[in-house]
């Protein structure tokens, strides 16, 4: 299926990505080519075929609920691009009331 620049723009919003106009056009063309190829899947009759999300037969493994220090706060913050005390910092989220 071909996709429009508008579809690409909407998807970018969901993916938290932004593109300039030239890249937007390029992506619309490239993603369109890929999706046209993928449309071959529609040839197959998959009625009543169970979907596979995972190849292993998984069961949920249980373990004892014990406190286990794997990573300290200091380690967790070591790569933070912005931090203050024991917290990650980000730009202000709540707008000023005025």
């Amino acid at each position, binding site marked *: 299926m071909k*996709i429009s620049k508008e*579809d*690409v723009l909407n*998807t*970018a919003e*969901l*993916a*938290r*990505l*932004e*593109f300039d106009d030239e*890249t937007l056009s390029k*992506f619309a063309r*490239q*993603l369109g*080519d*890929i*999706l046209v*190829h*993928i449309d*071959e*899947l*529609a040839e*197959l009759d*998959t009625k009543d*075929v*169970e*979907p*596979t*999300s*995972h*190849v*292993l037969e*998984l069961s*949920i*493994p249980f*373990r004892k609920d014990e406190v286990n220090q*794997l*990573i*300290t706060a200091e*380690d*967790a913050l*070591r*790569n*933070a*691009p*912005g931090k203050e005390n024991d917290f*990650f910092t*980000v*730009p*202000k*989220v709540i707008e000023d009331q005025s």
Partner: protein
Amino acid sequence: MSIPRTIKEAAALIEKREASPVELTELFLERISSEDGKINSYITVWEESALEAARKAEKEISEGNYLGPLHGVPIALKDIFVTKDSRTTCGSKMLRDFVAPYNSTVAEKLIAGGSVVLGKNNMDEFAMGSSNETSYFGPVRNPWDTDRVPGGSSGGSAAATTANLCVASVGTDTGGSIRQPASLCGVVGMKPTYGRVSRYGMIAFASSLDQAGPLAKIVEDAAIILSSIAGHDPMDSTSVNLPAADYAGALSADIKGLRVGIPKEYFVSGMDPEVEKSVREAIAELETLGAEIVEISLPHSRYAVSTYYIIAPSEASSNLARYDGVRYTYRCEDAETLRDLFFRSRSEGFGDEVKRRIMLGTYALSTGYYDAYYLKAQQVRTLIIRDFDSAWEKVDVIASATSPETAFRIGEKTDDPLKMYLSDILTIPCNIAGLPGISIPCGFSSEKLPIGLQIMGKPFDEQTVLNVAYAYEQSTKWYEEEMPPLG
């Protein structure tokens, strides 16, 4: 002293006290320093910690505490396995300064086995690519012809192993990322069964497909590494609770009576005639060795690329949501709002191929397209698996080419993502079905570029896959072919 080419050779030198781990490590570090500029196979070289590990190994061995065939042997790791106290970039600007607070299980096990890690190999960004051209740290070059790609995404691991810049490396394979570069560089590369090796600390691309495995010059080395990294890990609930086997110890070149399936659909149209010729000769060789050749059909494998390019990007779009510029990644400058911080950090931190896949996955999972794309792909995944299930009733392993072509030129496919995606047409089915697969050298083109033979096996039957590869390797010895000096 000439540089050992294999784990076996290096271990023999150490065992006979003809070379110490420190001498070997120095030899490899010198070679990396003089030669790697030509192929760019490392992102980070661990000069100091490698020597420190070598000294530790030397001391342990001299005290009579020999840990086994990897003890004191210089190897490398794809830069997707997080390692404590050294950066792990995953080939991305997003993680260019990231230092993990813990070791991946793969790294931990190799270190516990006494191996000396020389550094972290270059790779396609977040393992997304088939040519190693998407790395933020620049493309890797194929040691056989430096104008050509080494394949990807474990291109640095394959190139470094080929060029004797390590004796072996560990990579990851989501759609062929170990086997395809092994094929294009003329080395051995194995993707184990999904669940065989722990994914803890292996930066996630597509979690239902990702699996770690060895790249080495010979099958026996690949078996040694697999034994070292395999096994259950409580930190990865998808790692399977089966005892780790001594794959190298159990290697056997006797394949008499073994049934080798040849899927007729895998001689795809557009396949390089030289590749087809070499692979057909390899199959004839397996027959000479006593295997029974059986033609089989895997009719849905032709849909594997389409299936993969829905499933893998969908999982990736979710996995890569964590790179938000807040906790441990690249952060854009002067963000005024949180929204601005997310959008610009991600847009500046990811390269184009990663963005393309995040977009594709986000689109496939979005309202209105989920059933047509994601659900449909999961159903076709079932059909592809069923084909393999029926094949296993008739055969013990399946053989094909690894890649339909030899190494292509740098830049040849970068403008056409779809063409690039189709390079993995023969390796993707293994990941979709979770099967073990290996690529081993099976000849050279007229331009002296390596060709690879792929052998796939039943789930958790790595041993038979390795045995067939070993039998073929021992009778052909393509690994003895000398690489030209790096240009």
